[in-house]
Structures are given as C-alpha cells and as structure tokens.
C-alpha cells in the first residue's frame, strides 16, 4: 500500500507520478507532473469547472480528486477527447458557433458537454443551462455555448437518422 510513486492511467497511457505530495490534487498531478496542460485550474474548490475530467466515465472536477486516489481508474482529459488536428464534434461546434472567447473555460466545458450529450441526446435549453451550471464562463454570456450544444445535438440526430434509414 505504500508507494514512492504511483501510476495513473490517463488517456489510455500509464504515467508514473513521482515527487507528488500527499494530498496533491489530480489537477496539479495532470498539469505539473504529467505535463497535460489542457485542464485548467482557477478556483481549486469545484466552483468553476475548468478542470473537469472523466474518471471511470464520471465527470468530476480534477481539483477535488486526490491524485493518488485515482490509481487503477481510467482518466480522460481534454487531450484524450480527440486526436490533435481532428476535433470532436463538440469541439468543432464550439468553433463554428463562436463559443470560445478567451478559451480558459473551454476544455472543461467541452468535457461537460460531451458528458451531457452522452446522457441526454436532445437536451432542452433549460437542461443545458442546468447541466452546465458547474462550468463558469466569464466571456461569452453562455448564449453561443448553448448554441454549440444544440448544434451537436441536431447534427448527431441527423447522422443517426441517416444511418438508420
């Protein structure tokens, strides 16, 4: 049970984490030890959502996960959502809808939107607002972010209808 280092599985790859301090958050481990800078840190208290990642298919704030407690779990960060150069449908919709301004909240929002659309294929605007309540954006006013989510939802529905017909 005692380790000088621990191993985290991030985006399908095992990473050995040494020199972490007891209690260090998964966010800091991802950024400072593993070098994955996509997840952002702002509030470090779960208020802003910019550090959102998936741990065993559950959306969480990585700042509130103790890094070493996430051993033997599948961690997916924004870097694992899609290969560089070929954005996911959610990422592309953010670009198309102009849902990105300063971009700081975007990685967390993209994670949250992927999770939302996995659970609810056609969310209403109220559902989108409620489900994204944990992701704070200080630039956009949220209108274009909601537009982006709706675009993906419409697109995915059209694709699945085409496939089934």
């Amino acid at each position, binding site marked *: 049970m005692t380790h000088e280092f621990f191993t985290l599985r991030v985006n399908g790859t095992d990473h050995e984490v040494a020199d972490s301090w007891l*209690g260090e958050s998964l966010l800091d481990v991802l950024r400072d030890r593993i070098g994955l800078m996509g997840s952002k840190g702002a509030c470090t208290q779960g208020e802003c959502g910019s550090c959102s990642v998936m741990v065993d298919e559950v959306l969480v704030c990585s700042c509130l996960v103790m890094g070493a407690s996430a051993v033997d779990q599948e961690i997916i960060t924004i870097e694992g959502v899609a290969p560089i150069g070929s954005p996911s449908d959610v990422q592309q919709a953010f670009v198309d809808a102009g849902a990105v301004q300063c971009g700081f909240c975007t990685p967390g929002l993209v994670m949250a939107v992927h999770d939302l659309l996995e659970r609810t294929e056609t969310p209403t605007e109220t559902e989108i607002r409620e489900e994204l309540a944990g992701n704070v954006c200080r630039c956009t006013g949220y209108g274009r972010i909601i537009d982006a989510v709706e675009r993906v939802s419409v697109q995915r529905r059209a694709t699945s209808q085409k496939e089934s017909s």
Partner: protein
Amino acid sequence: MTVCKIPFMTVAVPTTLDDAVRLLAEQPDAMLLAGGTDAMVEINDGHRRPDNLVIALNRVGDLRAWRHDTKRRTLTIGAGVTYTELMQEPIGRLAPALAEASRTVGSPQIRNAGTLGGNLGTCSPAGDGLPVLSALDAQVRIVSATGERTASVHDVMVGVKRTSLEPGELIAEIVLPVLDGWQGYAKVGVRNAMVIAIASACLVVDAESRHISIALGSVGPTVVRCPDAEQQLAAAVDWAASSVPPEALDEFAGLASSASRPITDHRSTADYRRHAVGVLGKRLARRAFTTEGGRT
C-alpha cells in the same frame, strides 16, 4: 506557488470495508477521504494537510451499495452513494426529500463525487443532506475494526463540523424509513445553482402516523428540529382532506423561525436566516397540503 515535496506518501485505496476499518485501526488519525468535495477544498487552500495516511473510500464496494427492505420499509444507503445516485430512481422515489436536496448540491461534477456519508462526516451546518436525515430520524451504522454500532443521526451530529465518531470508526450506512406521505427540501442561497445554503428546510409528512417533521439547516451549529411547529401543524391539518387552514401556515412559519438559532456570518445575517427558514417552512407546508380559505 511553493510546493512542499514529501517523498514518502501513503494513500490507501481499499476495496472492502474490512480493509478500510483495519487500516483505520492501525492508524486511527488517518484522514478519511470520501468524495473529496469538502476535504480537497481544505487541502487546496492549505487549511488542512494530511501528514501520514489517507484512506480513500471511493472504491469500497460495500459503501457504494444501497438496498430497499420492503418488509421493514427501510432504505439503507451506503455512505459512499453519491448525490447523483440519490437523485435517480428508485432511490429518488423512496426518499424524495433526499433526492430533492441532492439536486440542489453544487453542479453535476460535485454531485458525481460528493457522497451522503461524506456530508454527514463533514457535518457542516450547511450540509444539504443533513436536514433530510434529521427530519427522517435516520439511523447511522458506524463500523470499526472491533465491531459496529447504530446511532441516531441526532446523536452523530454534535457541533459545527463535529461528529460523535470515535477514532477508528467510520460511517458505513444510513438507514431511512420509507414513508407514505409528502416530503421535500428547499433552500435559500444567492443564486439557483452552485450555492451553499443560507438557510434550508426539510419537511416530511408521515401520513400513516399523522406525524409531521421539519428540520432546518444553516441556522444553528447543527440541524435544528422544530417540535413545537411539528405538533402545531399536525394538529391543524385535516388529514382526511389533506388540507390545512392558511392561518395555521403563518403560525407554523413563526414557530419554525423561533426554533432557529442562526448567526450572522459572511454569507448572511441572523435576522435574514430566521426570516428565511420561516418562509421555507411555509412554502414546504403549502406544497405538502392543500390550503382552504383563499390566498396564503
């Protein structure tokens, strides 16, 4: 940012309750980590520094389970069940007030991580699950390496962020009655999402025994029950019609307000909190019963 490097660290991630309590017995001052939504905030802020052993409970299967005993009419919820799980069927139907309280907690991210056992273990005056546990007179199963005991939730919550748990003990399960009757939770905060309660209330109606309970959060060191208000409302209700005269609701609100023991802090004033719990109590009662005789 200065980062203190501690070359030797111990974070244990047990998967069984036996392993968890054995580790805790070996090192009773170990830090127990449930969902992390309270503990990690304190650690990130530097207010708390785990210095030897952290026992992460999120992978203990026994703590993640729940069961419905239809004969005894109880719902037993493992301490590691998350708010997200409490909102889903069938738990949401068996304990509607708990589901409603869970829905007011933080954001999806927080509800996915935060647990009922962690809420009770932290024992914050503003814990959203706690008025529900109090109003339902929950029983808490507490385990240690040497045995287990069951305690009333009222005896577990002893002060601001203080429980009656002894070193070496951890919260395993919370047992709630499955009741026939309306129940709900309401809170006041500065906005609708991601908010810590300025004042909160849970109202539970047991239609069978014609008993009403109301528990208030964020208006005392721990949850406050209001026996006077409970008796007054139960006596005023026309149980056959499930209705209540409007003037009884005002009296109920007043009794709930006067049972509260709020303080003024950075989140609100004592006066506002005292007023708000009365309003919340009245709102909940109006949802629980129909009112006769016009506007309330």
